[in-house]
């Protein structure tokens, strides 16, 4: 039984948002590792997918994440000026300035999409961010795609 099916079956069960985090290896992934080694607790709702750089992240991936069942998406990378590949995060930043507006225009609540800079030394920031986002997405409720039939796993 999939998560949405389970929630439909048990309407009294509290809604637990499903978050996908698209992060860069060098900063945010390492920051999440640091949160782990420091044993900083955070909400278990997030699934991290690793990329070499936020510059690699296609806006289409965000849409696919929502289609695939995500209720919220976080894209996170190195701070401006500190990109391991020098400028990948600048490309990402420019991209998101437009993509965010486009997604809002299509009706995706801005509480579901987050873009942040978390460095490898910011374990606490990562943990706090995940907790904050989980709360906000919980308040926004489950994401209802325009065409629910499209919500299928990739084979």
């Amino acid at each position, binding site marked *: 039984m999939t998560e949405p099916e389970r929630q439909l079956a048990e309407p009294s069960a509290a809604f637990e948002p499903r978050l*996908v985090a698209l992060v860069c290896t060098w900063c945010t992934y390492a920051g999440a590792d640091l949160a782990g080694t420091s044993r900083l*607790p955070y909400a*278990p709702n997030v699934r991290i997918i690793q990329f070499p*750089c936020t510059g*690699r992240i296609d806006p289409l991936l965000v849409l696919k994440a929502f289609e695939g069942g995500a209720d919220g998406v976080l894209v996170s990378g190195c701070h401006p000026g500190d990109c391991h590949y020098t400028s*990948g995060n600048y490309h990402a930043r420019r991209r998101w300035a437009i993509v965010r507006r486009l997604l809002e225009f299509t009706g995706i609540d801005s509480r579901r999409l987050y873009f942040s800079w978390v*460095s490898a030394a910011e374990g606490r920031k990562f943990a706090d961010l995940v907790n904050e986002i989980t709360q906000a997405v919980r308040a926004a409720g489950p994401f209802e795609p325009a065409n629910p039939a499209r919500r299928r*796993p990739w*084979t």
Partner: protein
Amino acid sequence: MARIGVFICHCGENIARTVDVAAVASAAARLPGVVHAVDYKYICSDPGQQMIRKAVSDLRLTGLVVGACSPRMHEATFRRAAAEAGLNPYLVEMANLREHCSWVHADRAAATAKAVDLVRLAVEKVKRNRALVPIRVPIEPTALVVGGGIAGIQAALDIAQAGRKVILVERSASIGGHMARLSETFPTLDCSQCILTPRMVEAASHPNIMLMTYSEVESVEGFVGNFQVTIRRKAKYVDWSKCTGCGDCWAKCPVQKIPSEFDAGLAPRTAIYRPFPQAVPSKPVIDAAHCLMLTKKKCGACAKVCDRGAIHFEDADELFRVKVGAVVLATGFDLWDHSAYGEYGGGRWADVVDGFQFERLASASGPTSGEIRRPSDGAVPQTVVFVQCCGSRDAKVGKAYCSKICCMVTAKHAMLYKHKVHKGRAVVFYMDVRAGGKGYEEFVRRAVESDGVEYVRGRVSRIYRRRDGRLIVRGADTLVGKPVTIEADLVVLADAVVPRRGSERLARMFGVGYDADGFYSEAHPKLRPVETSAAGVFLAGACQSPKDIPETVSQASAAAAKVLGLFSRPELEREPVVARVNENTCVHCRACLAACPYGAIEDYEIRDRQGRLLKVVARVNEGLCQGCGTCVAVCRSKSMDLEGFTDDQVFAQVVTLE
């Protein structure tokens, strides 16, 4: 057909305590493409790796997923195990069930569900991995060391003595760094320059070391094994190939009131100057901002008196391009500017000094020839108060950290004062005394028991200067629970250790990270203390974190060992995570060319057999591509893909979460 093997690690208790590893393994066994799924206590151990190797060969696995710690920990380990069994190492993926799961979540059901999802992501990815072969690049076996203090000198000497060439770049006119300014070093009270200057001379005269002082790194291109570094050699206005260091020039210079940086402002220097008598190279430079000839076209006395004709006022900065294979950053530290502490006078009073100023007072070759005297009136102070933790351990001024060396430095200063002024009173206000090194605790005990230094546990709330010139220090003695007021003649503040000014710019040039306090980030705080996230760039000394001289020397030698390890083979194997162009669909819009931070993409002409031009497309230079994937995301025709993170793999991961 995919035949994936999944191994879920207990990691002792670290994962198994929170995640139901057996349930994760059985959930994995049901995933399409998975033919083998087990859990085991320690997969990174020998028997664990043996288990992997056996499964790979017995079951003819086409891919491997290990659900365990972070890939930053053991990805290399499992790739090696797979390779030993005959499976291409790039057909291995890890699911991070420890740092990203069991260590941060408490609820067993939620953590287990997350673990299953993370394993599923990894399986979907690995099913689409391709067997890749490492790329080989030649290595230039020359090292660049940035910073000529004890860390840089030690690293340079170690590398040079192993037979490799080193370029040692130093910003000021002489090598030696802060250690050259110290009077004595703890815990032996060795004369600092006596132990340093032989190394300075060795570094300057070693045939494998090219010394570039009064120079700075201007820009950096390239990557590990193949850095192109541009170094700016600042205009000295003195031709060092002719100069003998005789000193006639600075004896004649009429500009004599510039505060000497070396003497921490306690003594003046001239416009044409040698930083200190033991400078290496022992030759002067002209300070262009203060020289009368260079600013006002008057004077020129030094050139007139120089019988070697070494001085010429038409000089310009020169840029040198060098090719190096590895870099050691050893830029050191500065002391925090305590003028932020209004409570301690805000830097207004000459008799409230910092650690370096006290070192220069105590130094036999310093402005007072080693006599401790008040900077204001030259009197010998009869009561000296030492204040620890000035700026350190104070979140209010943005420095929560401990500067590590000040407890020992202050004990040393108090002892030196008592050795020189036997009847003087030395009082140290402290919070804790941290003396963890070899012989350090005994050293502090000696200060208290043999030299009669008074240690008062409490902070100083205010220092002010009375009309008669005495400094009133108000603090507390928390062990007896009473406020304490001391009338002092001299106050020495143990200012916080901060990274060198301008070090952040250098870090960005090399792609090295730094923390909120500006200290350079090591690749792993425990296990990789001298490497950085930039391959081929290493760290040594206080630029990474406050440390004393023995630790600095150790770290410098460690960095040198890493460099020599890199140089031990003629070629470097590079990860084949590089971008590739689909030349059929590429429309040559050149967006990727513009986006690539490494200039790794070029135009490529496709011609037919008669040499007629058919099409121009983009092509990736595998030697330069670092695998960031920025080009993939900007490509409008979806002609670009990144090995190891292909569109196929990444979309599969994103969509598989249900």
